[in-house]
């Protein structure tokens, strides 16, 4: 018989500790690091963290180190399957090479979203989904 899973934030995260995790933040950043600690607010300590940016079938990494992340900024936490990680069909390049493309992607997306929400506000009475810093 399965033991009763504690239906708590802690219960959901306990087997992620000391594992390599993907963290997606509300500003759109994707971090990968080893989860060392968490609490009931999903505040996280992430060690040996790298930030990854993606553009089409290419990615780049930048070393960031030790993070304490405030839980309210977390979108999702993903357990990285170390076997599957080797099979990901993406090419790695230098951060400085990819960064301008990534920044352009982000700027284009924001512009599209701004135009869209303005049109929907004027024509259909919708208000914006997210607030400041919701770029995910």
């Amino acid at each position: 018989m399965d033991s009763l899973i504690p239906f708590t934030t802690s219960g959901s995260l306990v087997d992620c500790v000391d594992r390599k995790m993907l963290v997606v933040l509300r500003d759109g950043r994707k971090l990968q690091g080893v989860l060392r600690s968490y609490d009931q607010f999903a505040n996280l300590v992430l060690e040996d963290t790298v930030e990854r940016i993606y553009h089409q079938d290419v990615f780049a990494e930048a070393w960031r180190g030790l993070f304490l992340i405030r839980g309210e900024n977390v979108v999702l936490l993903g357990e990285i399957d170390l076997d599957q990680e080797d099979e990901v069909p993406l090419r790695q390049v230098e951060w400085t090479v990819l960064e301008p493309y990534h920044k352009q992607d982000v700027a284009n997306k924001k512009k599209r979203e701004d135009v869209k929400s303005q049109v929907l506000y004027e024509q259909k009475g919708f208000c914006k989904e997210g607030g400041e810093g919701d770029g995910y």
Partner: protein
Amino acid sequence: MDASSSGIQEPFDLIRLSLSERVFVKLRGDRELTGVLHAYDGHMNLILSDVEETIMIVDQVEGAPEGHATVNVAKRKMEMLFVRGDGVILVSPPSRT
């Protein structure tokens, strides 16, 4: 509809009347739903069945930057749906057109 005689005292009482009825829900961003209301709570979290979702799509015309963009729709059906309350703008009986 005489509100005072049916004991409606606060907005949630109105929603209560719509339980097991079809409602129209407008969400933040670009979505509207109709569905049969089965549950709600104080956060306006909802559980709906037999849902039809309408997604607004804005076609941006490159030529005229401040020009008129057209709004098209895409529809989707879902059998049973939980809707998070912080995305809800309004809940109402479906429009009678």
